[in-house]
């Protein structure tokens, strides 16, 4: 399955597309307002980008420094080379503590590792505690956006979902009522949880601590109630010094939602008395990506989601059309790095408008990497032989000016003479919803020969 066919399904419902587009554009506008309050915004982006480049260039060093300092703080540090290892580490800790129920918050990484189905198979109840995540969990779907996981769902749909699963009354999509119901429901789950799982936004090598940014406070709620906290982080989340944190905190929330800071920016340095704190450092393909110089900068990503909000394709095709854990522009660079064949259509799911690169707070040259992926994908997978053939032919025709001119003339003539039904046939994708340009009698070159050649 490819992006175009999934996108086509989404686009069919034009009202929904308009609503999806406008919701995300609204977030993008809020981001613009917040960014424009900072005259030094562009310098901040540059600074963030440099810190990330530096951290990645000495990632091994900083990871070990982090491990040393975190261990000294009383945090138990684990290393996982891939998703399977990550899930096993989590489950082993759970087994040791006889964990039956957990609450989870803010972790795209556990999505990436498909942790939920794994734990459920082993009899552990997993509750995603952020509202959006809980909604998609109840709907048995995946998040369609990394910051706004249920942005594709309308209020009425959430209403119905809650009636079915949480036994609420029909409320005509009343946001206050639904939020209150979710809060009630989640509160119970928080009270019962044996452990809390969170993601990590930043880990600081210098101090051996990590930071979790949330708006609903659920990560904190889970962590404060449960005797066990496991945090999972991709190894690229490492930043060298405590003072670097300020740069990213200022960029993250503003880029994500236009807020000045997230409502909760929690720093975890040591376990609370009588509790355990674990952190799992997960590779899962990241060192491979680090080794690919062309795509290395994609690891700068701080998962703000701004590139999704701004992307005109994402806004109109919906996150699920990307069929990858991280959708949108950044996902279209990361996913082919994990499975090139499966995600071969993603780098083409872009008009290369470049809005993603300009909006990105850590200055990832996203659209350029998409262009580069296109070259790599056509070379390394032989997905579309017909396309390859036509491109070869095109390249050949463009190097034979005489033939090119004749073909052009012939094409225009044919277009003029052919009856409409022959031009607008199912093979003419352009013409499904668009007219072709009206062929003129003369090409410019022909006009030029006739009118100017002598004085040229």
């Amino acid at each position, binding site marked *: 399955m490819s992006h175009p066919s999934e996108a086509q399904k989404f686009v069919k419902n034009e009202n929904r597309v308009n609503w999806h587009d406008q919701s995300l*554009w609204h977030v993008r506008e809020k981001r613009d307002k917040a960014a424009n309050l900072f005259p030094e915004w562009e310098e901040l982006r540059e600074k963030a980008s440099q810190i990330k480049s530096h951290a990645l260039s000495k990632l091994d060093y900083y990871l070990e420094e982090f491990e040393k300092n975190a261990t000294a703080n009383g945090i138990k540090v684990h290393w996982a080379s891939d998703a399977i290892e990550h899930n096993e580490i989590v489950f082993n800790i759970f087994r040791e503590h006889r964990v039956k129920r957990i609450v989870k918050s803010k972790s795209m990484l556990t999505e990436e590792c498909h942790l939920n189905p794994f734990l459920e198979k082993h009899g552990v109840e997993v509750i995603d505690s952020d509202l959006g995540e809980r909604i998609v969990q109840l709907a048995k779907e995946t998040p369609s956006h990394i910051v706004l996981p249920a942005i594709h769902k309308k209020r009425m749909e959430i209403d119905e979902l809650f009636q079915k699963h949480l036994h609420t009354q029909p409320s005509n999509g009343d946001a206050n009522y639904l939020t209150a119901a979710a809060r009630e429901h989640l509160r119970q789950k928080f009270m019962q949880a044996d452990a809390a799982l969170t993601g990590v936004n930043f880990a600081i090598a210098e101090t051996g601590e990590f930071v979790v940014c949330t708006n609903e406070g659920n990560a904190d709620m889970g962590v404060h109630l449960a005797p066990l906290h496991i945090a999972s982080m991709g190894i690229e989340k490492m930043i060298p010094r405590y003072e670097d944190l300020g740069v990213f905190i200022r960029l993250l929330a503003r880029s994500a939602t236009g807020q000045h800071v997230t409502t909760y920016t929690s720093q975890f340095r040591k376990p609370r008395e009588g509790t355990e704190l674990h952190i799992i450092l997960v590779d899962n393909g990241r060192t491979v990506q680090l080794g690919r110089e062309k795509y290395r900068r994609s690891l700068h990503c701080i998962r703000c989601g701004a590139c999704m909000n701004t992307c005109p394709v994402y806004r109109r095709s919906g996150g699920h059309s990307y069929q990858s854990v991280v959708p949108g522009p950044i996902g279209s660079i990361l996913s082919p790095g994990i499975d090139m064949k499966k995600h071969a259509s993603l780098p083409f799911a872009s008009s290369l408008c470049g809005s993603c690169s300009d909006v990105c707070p850590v200055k990832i040259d996203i659209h350029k990497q998409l262009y580069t992926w296109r070259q790599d994908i056509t070379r390394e997978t032989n997905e579309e032989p017909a396309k390859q053939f036509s491109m070869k032919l095109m390249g050949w025709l463009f190097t034979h000016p005489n033939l090119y001119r004749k073909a052009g003339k012939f094409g225009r003539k044919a277009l003029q003479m052919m009856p409409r039904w022959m031009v607008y046939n199912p093979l003419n994708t352009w013409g499904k919803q668009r007219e072709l340009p009206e062929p003129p009698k003369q090409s410019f070159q022909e006009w030029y020969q006739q009118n100017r050649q002598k004085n040229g």
Partner: protein
Amino acid sequence: MHIGLFIPCYVDQFYPQVAVATLELLEKLGHRVSVPPDQTCCGQPMANSGYERFAKKTMDLFVQNFAEFDYVVAPSGSCVYHVRKHFDIIEQTPEVQKIREKTLEICEFLVNHNTTDTLQSSFPYRVGLHESCHGQRGLRFAKSSELVGEPFSIIRQLLEKVEGIELVNLQRSDECCGFGGTFAVAEEAVSVKMGKDRIQDHILNGAQVITGTDMSCLMHMEGIIRRRKLPLRVMHVSEILNHSEQHEPSV
């Protein structure tokens, strides 16, 4: 100063009036212009589709055709972008390096050479400017809405010199129209939806004409406009700059 005029393949075949307007405009402003007869394409269609490697010979031919000129000027931001940024895959001979530096989009050339005070064009219509992405974010003809800083737009600056023109403001100043080369075909559904939305913004704000530096974006929007019989037409920015009551364009 001798200018070589590059006319992208589809403009040559489908929009000769744009090429003529560009030529006349340059001549009117006192430049010496030639049109190498063996020019075809810059190689962009193959490259953006992921077949850069099949475009190398087309790039070589481009260099051959235009090596002798002081400047190469084209009525297309995206082709110019391609020459400047993507000709790095062929051998960087002095000619190639010079061409990569001296290939300019028509408006960019006019602004850089400060010859626009004698423009004397008039176009008494309400016009919406489509800042096409390759010009805007690729060649930085305008500040993109994502960046923080002083707004500017060299295309707007030029159009403002046209007598009688009324430039309309858009809700989304620089959203992509959805053309994107082969994207328009490979992602037909999304592409058309993007185009429809882009056109709607112009209509809502009272534009009678959409203009821009890339005929390809305009061709895509024109295709939708004509299919849906919308009250709007498209014109390349060269056509507007070359437009005056005294002097009607020759095609």
